C-alpha cells in the first residue's frame, strides 16, 4: 500500500509539480510557506482537483492518470482528509459528523454512532456529541474534524494542519493519540504542518514545498541539520546563509564576510545554530575567528530562552538565557559584540 | 378518466347561467332518476375554445349567437340550436341612484364615470348597439371583461354607472335602470346537444327540459326573459 505520485497541475497562478512516494506505515510531513501549494497537493490526492499530467497511484492502483483518461472519484478513493478549515457539516452534531463516513459507507445508524462515540472520546469530546459545529470552539471543531477523518477508516490519510487550533495540553495528547493511531494504521499518510514540533513529532520524512515544487526532502534529522532554504531554516530555528566561499572566507549575499573552516569553494549554503552565537558587552578577546559588533533589532522570549535578532554585517538570530539578557542589558537598538567560531558554521555546497 | 360515467351528462354553459342552470340541473335530476348533470361554467368564448381542443361535452349553452355559430360551423352540434332565453340590457347604478340617472342620455353627463364591457364581449357589443340606436356617444372609461366586473365596480362606487344585463343587477348595493324598450337590445341564449354527447338520449332530454315550460319558469324566476 504505497502512495506514489508524480503530477503537475495549474491553479490560479500556482503551477504545482511534485513527485514523491510514501510507503505503507510511513508519514510524510509536507511543509512550506503559505501559498506553496500544500493544500492544493492534498486536494489533488483526495480527488477534489484533477491533475493535468502525471499520475497518482495508491497500492498499485491508478487513482488519477489523465493520459489514460482514468479518474477515480473522491468517494471511491478511501482517503481521509482533515481540511485546513475543518468543513464540519453545519447541520449535523459532532457525533453525526463523525459518524458520517461510516454511514456513507453503509454502516447502520446504531453501529456507526457507537463507533463515532468512541472516536469522540478519543479526542476528548465525548460530552459534546450533540453540539452543532457553530457551537464548538475552534479547537474542538478541529478535533471533531480529526475524529471524522479517522473514523471513516481510510486507506490514505491526508491531514492539513490537524493540530493548529488545538490547545497545548490536547496537542500533546492528540499527538500521542495520533501517533498511536498512525502506528496501527497500515496506509501511508501525509501531514501538512506549520508547526515544526507537529511536523517532526508526527513524520518520518519531510518534504519541503516552495512555490509548487519540492525543494528538499529527507528524514527529520537531515532536514534539521542541513536546511537548504530560508523557510526550512526558520522552521527549525537555524540561521541560514547563502554565499560564496573563497580561500576559507564566506562572503554573504549582503556583503558581510565570515571566516569558515571548510574544504568547499564557490557557492555554498551555510548554517549557524542560534546557540552557537555568543554575545558580549565588550569586545571579547580569544579564539573565535569571527567577532563583530551588531545592533539588536528584536528580542523574543521563547519559553525559557530568548531569541535575539541581530542586524549589521551578517543578520543572524542568537539564542541566550534570560539571565544573559539582564546581564548584558539587551534591548532593541543596543549594540553588542558577536563572536562566532569558524567551526560552528556548517558549510555545504549549494 | 375524463369521460363521465354512463348517464352523466356534461353541460358546458356560459358563466352567467350558473344560477339558473344549477337549479335546472337539480330539477332535471329529480324528474329523471339515474341521470346526473355535470355543469361546467366558463366564459362562452372559452367554452368554444375548449370544445375546439377536443373537450368531451354533451350539451352547449351559449350566451351569444356568434359563439354558437362557431360550434355549429365546426360540425360539433348534433341538432339545430334552440333559443331558450333572452336577456335585456339595463343601466346599473348604485342602490340609491345618487346621480339620478334615468336613461342612456344621462350617461354622457360630464364628470360621470361609466364603463361598458369590451366590444368583444357580447354584453359590450349589445351595449354599443343600444347606444348607437339612442344616438349617444359614450366614452367608456374601461372595456371591462365581463358584466360582473362592471357590477362589482358600480357596487364599490368606482363607477357611477354601467350597462349590463338585467339579470346581473339583482345583487345587493346596486339597482337597475331599465332602458327605453325602443333602445333595448336583447341578448339571445341558445342551447344545443353536441355530437360527442354521452348518452345522447339524456342530453337531448336535458335540452328539451330547458325549453320546456318547467325549465322556462325556472329561467324566468332568475330574471331571464323567456321566448
Amino acid at each position, binding site marked *: 500500500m504505497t502512495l506514489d505520485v508524480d503530477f503537475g497541475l495549474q491553479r490560479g497562478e500556482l503551477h504545482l509539480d511534485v513527485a514523491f512516494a510514501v510507503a505503507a506505515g510511513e508519514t510524510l510531513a509536507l511543509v512550506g510557506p503559505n501559498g506553496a501549494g500544500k493544500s492544493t497537493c492534498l486536494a489533488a490526492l*483526495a480527488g477534489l482537483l484533477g491533475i493535468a499530467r502525471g499520475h497518482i497511484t495508491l497500492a498499485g492502483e491508478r487513482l488519477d492518470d489523465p493520459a489514460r483518461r482514468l479518474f477515480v472519484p473522491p468517494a471511491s478513493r478511501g482517503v481521509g482528509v482533515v481540511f485546513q478549515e475543518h468543513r464540519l457539516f453545519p447541520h449535523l452534531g459532532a457525533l453525526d459528523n463523525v459518524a458520517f463516513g461510516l454511514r*456513507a459507507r453503509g454502516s447502520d445508524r446504531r453501529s456507526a454512532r457507537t463507533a463515532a462515540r468512541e472516536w469522540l472520546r478519543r479526542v476528548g469530546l465525548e460530552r459534546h456529541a450533540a453540539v452543532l459545529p457553530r457551537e464548538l470552539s475552534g479547537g474542538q471543531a478541529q478535533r471533531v474534524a480529526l475524529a471524522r477523518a479517522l473514523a471513516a477508516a481510510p486507506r490514505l490519510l491526508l491531514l492539513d494542519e490537524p493540530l493548529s487550533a488545538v490547545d497545548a495540553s490536547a496537542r500533546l495528547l492528540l499527538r500521542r493519540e495520533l501517533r498511536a493511531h498512525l502506528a496501527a494504521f497500515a496506509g501511508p499518510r501525509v501531514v501538512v504542518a506549520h508547526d515544526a514540533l507537529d511536523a517532526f513529532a508526527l513524520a518520518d520524512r519531510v518534504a519541503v514545498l516552495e512555490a509548487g515544487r519540492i525543494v528538499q526532502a529527507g528524514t527529520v534529522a537531515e532536514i534539521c541539520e542541513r536546511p537548504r532554504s530560508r523557510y526550512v531554516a526558520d522552521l527549525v530555528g537555524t540561521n541560514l546563509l547563502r554565499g560564496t566561499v573563497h580561500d576559507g572566507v564566506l562572503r554573504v549575499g549582503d556583503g558581510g564576510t565570515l571566516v569558515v573552516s571548510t574544504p568547499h569553494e564557490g557557492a555554498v549554503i551555510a548554517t549557524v545554530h542560534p546557540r552557537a552565537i555568543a554575545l558580549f558587552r565588550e569586545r571579547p578577546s580569544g579564539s573565535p575567528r569571527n567577532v563583530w559588533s551588531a545592533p539588536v533589532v528584536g528580542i523574543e522570549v521563547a519559553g525559557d530562552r530568548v531569541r535575539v535578532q541581530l542586524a549589521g554585517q551578517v543578520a543572524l538570530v542568537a539564542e541566550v538565557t534570560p539571565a544573559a539578557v539582564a546581564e548584558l542589558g539587551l534591548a532593541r537598538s543596543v549594540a553588542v559584540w558577536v563572536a562566532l567560531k569558524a567551526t560552528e558554521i556548517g558549510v555545504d555546497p549549494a | 378518466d375524463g369521460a363521465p360515467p354512463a348517464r352523466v351528462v356534461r353541460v358546458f354553459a356560459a*358563466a352567467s347561467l350558473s344560477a339558473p342552470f344549477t337549479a335546472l340541473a337539480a330539477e332535471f335530476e329529480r324528474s329523471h332518476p339515474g341521470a346526473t348533470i355535470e355543469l361546467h361554467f366558463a366564459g362562452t368564448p372559452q367554452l368554444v375554445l375548449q370544445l375546439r381542443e377536443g373537450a368531451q361535452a354533451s350539451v352547449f349553452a351559449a350566451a351569444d349567437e356568434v359563439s354558437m355559430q362557431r360550434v355549429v360551423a365546426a360540425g360539433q352540434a348534433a341538432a339545430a340550436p334552440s333559443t331558450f332565453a333572452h336577456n335585456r340590457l339595463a343601466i346599473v347604478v348604485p342602490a340609491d341612484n345618487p346621480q339620478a340617472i334615468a336613461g342612456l342620455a344621462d350617461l354622457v353627463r360630464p364628470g360621470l364615470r361609466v364603463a361598458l364591457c369590451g366590444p368583444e364581449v357580447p354584453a359590450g357589443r349589445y351595449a354599443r348597439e343600444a347606444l348607437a340606436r339612442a344616438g349617444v356617444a359614450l366614452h367608456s372609461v374601461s372595456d371591462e371583461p365581463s358584466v*360582473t366586473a362592471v357590477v362589482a365596480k358600480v357596487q364599490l362606487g368606482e363607477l357611477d354607472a354601467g350597462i349590463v344585463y338585467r339579470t346581473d343587477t339583482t345583487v345587493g348595493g346596486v339597482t337597475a335602470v331599465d332602458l327605453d324598450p325602443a333602445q333595448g337590445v336583447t341578448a339571445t341564449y341558445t342551447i344545443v346537444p353536441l355530437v360527442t354527447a354521452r348518452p345522447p338520449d339524456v342530453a337531448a332530454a336535458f335540452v328539451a327540459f330547458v325549453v320546456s315550460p318547467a325549465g322556462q319558469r325556472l329561467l324566468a324566476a332568475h330574471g331571464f326573459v323567456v321566448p
Partner: protein
Amino acid sequence: MNARRRDLAALATLLPVVVATAFFVLPLLGLLLRAPWSRFLEQAGSPAVLDALWLSLLCSTSAAACSLLLGLPLAVWLAGGQGAVRAVVRVLVTLPMVLPPVVGGIALLVAYGRNGIVGGPLARWLDVALPFTTAGVVLAATYVSTPFFVLTVEAGLRSVDRRYADAAATLGAGPWHTFGRVTLPLVLPSLRAGLVVAWARALGEFGATITFAGNLAGHTRTLPLAVYVALESQPEAAVVTSLLLVVVSVGLLFLLRHRWWPSR
C-alpha cells in the same frame, strides 16, 4: 448613542416594514370589513364550498409535491453550471410565469388535451384523458407553480458552499448520499420557501385550471373557481368564499411556522 436616539433609529428601520405590511393588510382588512359576516358560517359551511375547499387543498398540495418532484432535479441541474444550454432551459422553464394563465391553459390543452401532442396518444392507446379531471387540475397547477419553485431553489443551491459536498465525497459518500445528507439540508430554507410559494400559487390558481381542467363541481371546481361562479350570481358570497381560502391558508401557514421557519 443614548436610548432615545436608538429607539428613533429602530423606528426609522421599522417604518418601511410597517408601510409594506399595511400595503398588504389593508386590502384584506377591507374585504373583512365589507364581508357579510352574518352569512359567513352558512356560506362557508355549505357542502359545495367545503367540497371546493377540500379539492383546492388536495390539488395545491399535490401540485406542490409535483413541483418538488419535477423541479428539484431541474434546479439541481441548473445550479450545477453555466453555459448556454442551461440559460435556454432556464428561460423556457420560466415562461409559464410570464404566460397569462388562460393562455397557459390553452397551451396545456394543445399538449395534454385529448387531441394534444402527448394527450392524443395517451387518450388513444391508454384511454387516459387529463382535461376535466382532478389530475388535470393538478397538472395545470403544477405547470404554473413549478417555475417559482425552480427559480427559488436554484438560487438557494447557488449559495450553498460546495466545499461541504467535497468533504462528504472524501468520506466516501456518493453523489446521492451527499445530495441527500449534505446539500439538501443546507438548502432547506430555500426549498421550504420554494414549496410555500409553489403551494400558494397553486392554491390561488384559476385561469389555467378553468381552461384545461374545467369547472366541474366536485371534480375540478377548486375554491377559486367556486369564487368565480359565485361572483356571477352572488358577489358577497364570493367574497366570503375567498375569505375562507384566506382563513384556511392563514391557519395552515401559521401552524407550519415552527417547522418551516425554525429558529437558527
